[in-house]
């Protein structure tokens, strides 16, 4: 499910936006596994700007982050952090965090800030130990949020007045929009590390994720394949301009949805006959949980049984949740995809 499945009775466009997976996905620049954000403002009190010549090796990233951490000492609050809107000053280490975003929840728990989290929204069902509540990330209710007496609220979607309401109540809040690139992911993890006082854990997570990704890339067979990525059984797809499209692009895969999206919206609906005509090497199903799609249902579709991907068993069933979030489990997604690529390459 989406991090913030958005629903408002019968609004088609909203439903379309839903596929979009988005919450105002920002453009973002070129993705790279070891991004430029590894040395972001980790220094407390004075937000030392990231050096423009950012470290590109993981070792350098660790060194940079650890350097600032050790000088910073444990009780370094207040800290300044960057969210999607700008710089926010957090006075004291938060102990009662409310997260309204599945991806941010996963990040918080992955950097050992879990004990500081008192409530997460109804879609934050990973990791299992997260304190799931019926709070809504799509239509956040300010009264329900304040009932948890939070000293920090993090979210990825603001329907209009969430941030201003929280500010008016004097509750510290951070908005981190859906990631547009891997750099955004590293950035958000590190900023969450700063704000929770888990700087070292955050740096470690980023380094380990980057290491995992580089390992996946290193093991990748030297082959180029085309792929069709399915968001639902009405053939909505993603292009290379989206976060997941960029990430799959890192693996050298070519997206067949790109010609279908001249405006760069990112989430076109494809024609069935186009998919059959192009005959992609790989089919990724991101609609297994939501819509019960699998290899068999795909093979049963009219005209699809003769597709190369179907014949080769290259129809890959993804976990919708993992595929629609930009949290630590993005590594898992890439692992599944890389395995499929390796398997296909071994066949030929």
């Amino acid at each position, binding site marked *: 499910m989406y991090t913030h499945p958005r*629903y408002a009775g*019968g609004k088609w466009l909203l439903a379309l936006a839903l596929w979009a997976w988005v919450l105002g996905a920002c453009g973002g620049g070129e993705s790279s596994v070891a991004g430029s954000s590894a040395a972001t403002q980790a220094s407390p009190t004075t937000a030392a700007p990231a050096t423009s010549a950012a470290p590109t090796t993981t070792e350098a990233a660790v060194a940079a982050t650890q350097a600032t951490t050790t000088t910073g000492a444990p009780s370094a609050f207040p800290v300044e952090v960057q969210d999607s809107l700008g710089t926010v000053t957090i006075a004291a280490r938060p102990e009662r965090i409310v997260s309204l975003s599945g991806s941010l929840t996963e990040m918080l728990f992955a950097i050992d800030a879990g004990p500081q989290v008192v409530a997460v929204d109804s*879609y934050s069902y990973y990791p299992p130990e997260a304190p799931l509540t019926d709070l809504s990330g799509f239509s956040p209710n300010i009264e329900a949020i304040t009932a948890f007496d939070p000293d920090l609220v993090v979210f990825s979607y603001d329907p209009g007045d969430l941030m201003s309401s929280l500010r008016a109540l004097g509750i510290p809040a951070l908005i981190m929009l859906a990631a547009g690139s891997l750099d955004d992911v590293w950035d958000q993890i590190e900023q969450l590390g700063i704000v929770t006082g888990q700087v070292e854990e955050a740096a470690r997570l980023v380094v380990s994720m980057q290491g995992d990704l580089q390992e996946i890339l290193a093991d990748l067979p030297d082959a180029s394949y085309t792929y069709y990525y399915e968001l639902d059984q*009405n053939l909505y797809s993603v292009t290379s301009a989206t976060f997941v499209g960029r990430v799959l692009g890192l693996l050298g895969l070519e997206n067949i949805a790109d010609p*279908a999206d001249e405006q760069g919206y990112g989430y076109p609906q*494809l024609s069935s*006959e186009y998919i*059959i005509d192009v005959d992609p090497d790989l089919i990724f199903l991101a609609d297994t949980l939501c819509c019960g799609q699998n290899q068999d249902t795909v093979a049963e*579709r009219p005209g699809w049984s003769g597709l190369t991907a179907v014949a080769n068993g290259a129809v890959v069933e993804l976990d919708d949740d993992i595929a629609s979030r930009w949290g630590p489990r993005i590594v898992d997604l890439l692992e599944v995809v890389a395995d499929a690529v390796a398997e296909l390459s071994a066949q030929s």
Partner: protein
Amino acid sequence: MTPLSALAQPSRVGLGRMMLALALGVAVLGVALLVGPAGLEMGEVLAALVDRLPLVEVENSLTERELTILWEIRMPRTVMGALVGATLASAGAAYQGVFRNPLADPYLLGVAAGAGLGATVAILLRARGFSSLPLAPLAFAGAVVGVALSYGLSRTRGRDRRSSTTLVLAGVAVASFLTAVQTFLQLTNVTTLREVYSWILGRLVTVGWNDLYAVLPYMVVSWLVLLIFRRALDVMTVGDDEASTLGLSPRMVRLIVVSAATLGAAAAVSASGLIAFVGIIVPHTVRLLAGWSYRVIIPLSLVMGGAFLAAADVVARTVVSPAELPIGVVTAFLGGPFFLMVLRTSGDLE
């Protein structure tokens, strides 16, 4: 009292107009089969189509995959578009006649809300382990239940007081209630939210022959009943009391016509999701161009509705090819201006 069958006499549609409409329909279907995002060679497609005619042998050089695209994707989709358009347009015309309300559409009496609820329930049950449960029959059943509720509840004030107005109002209330139930189910089962939307947004994109065979019988029955009762609809336009004095039972006609139109609309909705506009625009355009008799409106709406939706579907799958436009957007975008043009050149609707 004249038996209803006396009203069911065939009457002349205007052969010339009908032939013209049919020719237009065939032309649209031809174009629909020739163009598409896969870019099949048109001459070869034409050859393959002609080859299928009895007693004709024509060579074509389409590959197996291209033939699959033509026969398994393009053909059923085009035919389904035409069937749905014909059904919605004729059902819309019938509703407008029987309720004497120019704004009546095929979804008036809770068809859409009932189908939506049925589809939602089917999707929820599938997520609960009934994985092979087919969706279309439940959507269909929901649509029929929606209309049956509207019809049944409009009787509660007593037989004599039941008018077309009470029926429409009951339909509005039932539709609101069913939509509320559907929304509640959806919101309490968030993991299936996306599939419900998928269904509502329309399914012409993935239609196959089996989907078509499943709904065709209901549509054909609906068309036949509406064609048979087109003269009775003319009598209904003068008002219930007047119709009674002419020897017609307005309640009986209304029940039969509403049942038939609902059957068709429910089949269309279950196959294609909600496609608005066709049921209003097509019959009114026919009215403005060809006159006010339902003897003309019903058959012409059938043909023109089929041609219109098939044409809209061609636009939907070619304009932003290889992407798709939602067909409802196309019907409104093409239908709106066209209808206004007809309205301005043909005088008002009174």
